[in-house]
Every structure is written in structure tokens, then in C-alpha cells.
């Protein structure tokens, strides 16, 4: 079971990385994360939306209302320039943490 602090910390970089591939909507984002993690990363679905809301107010992503295949209103999100920058910074930081942990396991320095 992944610790909830780690799930919370990784939410933003994951969302940014997914949106870097193209526009997406909340439900699809959650399903993608579940599929990619083999079900090990389980977000409480509703909690994604406050995170998206926060990222939008910070200017990292933007949204638009569109229509689904069934004609229902659906909110699509896409990455903004500041979001791309934030994503790069997240990747750098997570890579560093991962390198240090991997190095510690092998008794090496980064």
C-alpha cells in the first residue's frame, strides 16, 4: 500500500505529465493513473478535483467545457507554459530523490 503522503506528493507531477501528452479530463486522468500503476496508486476520485482546481488557480493548467461522446458536458484540462516549467522542475526533483535512494541501496553517491 503506497503511503498517502507519497500519493499526495506525486499527484501534481503525475497530472502535469499526463496533460503534457495532450488535453485530458478528470475521469480519464484517474483511470490512466490506476492503469499505469497496476491499481497500486488509488486516488480517492473526488480528491483529484481540488488538486486540478488548485493547479488551475496557480496558472499551471487551464480548462474548457466540451462535450463527451454521449453529449454530456465534460471539463477538459490542458497544460500551460508555467505548467510545463513546473513539470520539468518536478521531474528534476523526483529524479534526484530516486537517484539518491538508488545510490543508497548500492552504497554509492549521486
Amino acid at each position, binding site marked *: 500500500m503506497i503511503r498517502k503522503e507519497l500519493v499526495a506528493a506525486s499527484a501534481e507531477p503525475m497530472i502535469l505529465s499526463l496533460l503534457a501528452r495532450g488535453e485530458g479530463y478528470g475521469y480519464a486522468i484517474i483511470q490512466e493513473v490506476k492503469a499505469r500503476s497496476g491499481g497500486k496508486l488509488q486516488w480517492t*476520485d473526488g*480528491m483529484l*478535483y*481540488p*488538486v486540478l*482546481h*488548485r493547479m488551475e488557480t*496557480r496558472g499551471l493548467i487551464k480548462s474548457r467545457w466540451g462535450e463527451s461522446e454521449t453529449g454530456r458536458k465534460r471539463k477538459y484540462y490542458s497544460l500551460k507554459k508555467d505548467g510545463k516549467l513546473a513539470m520539468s522542475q518536478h521531474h528534476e526533483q523526483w529524479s534526484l530523490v530516486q537517484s539518491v535512494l538508488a545510490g543508497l541501496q548500492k552504497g554509492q553517491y549521486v
Partner: protein
Amino acid sequence: MFDLEAAIAGWRMQMLAAGIKTPVPLDELEFHVREEIERQVKSGLNTPQAFAAAVQQIGQANALKQEFEKAERTFMKRTLIILAGILGVLLGMALIMPAAHLYKEQGMMHNAVVGFSWGIPIVLFGVGTAVFGLKRRKA
């Protein structure tokens, strides 16, 4: 006979009662619930079970409301910091400009010095606060 639309309407009422706003984010959450119900039905659950599972996955209304409020509070706090900075700049300028005028037009050195010595630090403090608020807004 299970009435899905009535069940969703009831769920919406609960969300509204807990303070989740409409249309944002409630319409988005409703869409998510409907998508999840469809997925659960396709995977073999009956409609009432699918509805219960979808609603559970969305989470409790109060917990959601707290998370949305947290996001809004953070945004408001940072916006207020930026506004405080701008006010500081304006206040400082309100002290500097009359002081400059007094010195230039009337040679009143003492009053000018008082104006500058208060105004300049206040402007600098205001600029610093606004920049801090802007940087924090992105964080």
C-alpha cells in the same frame, strides 16, 4: 425499481447541502460519477451497486468540501499578500511624491527627509511583499 436519475439527484442534493458548489465543481463530479457507473455496469455490477461504488469512490462530501476550501484559502491568502504589497507601494509613493514636491518647490528639507525616509522603505517593503506573493502563488 431503482431510479438512477433520482439517486444521482439525491447525491447532488447531499453534495449541495455539504457546500459543494454548482456548476463548478459539482457538475464535473456528477459527470465523473456517471462515467464510473457506466464502467462498473460494463464490468458486471447492477445499476444500484454501480451507483453505490461510484459515489463511494468520489468520496465524502465534507472531505471534498474541506479540500476545495483549502485550495481557495491558499489562493486568497496569496492574493491578499500581493494586494498588501501593492498597497504598500502606493502608500510609500504617497509619502515620497509630496516630499519631493516640498523639497523641489519650497526647499523644505526637513519635511522632505521625513517623507523620503518613511516612503522609500515602505515602497521597497511593498515591492518585496508583492514579489513574494507572486512567487508563492506559483508554488
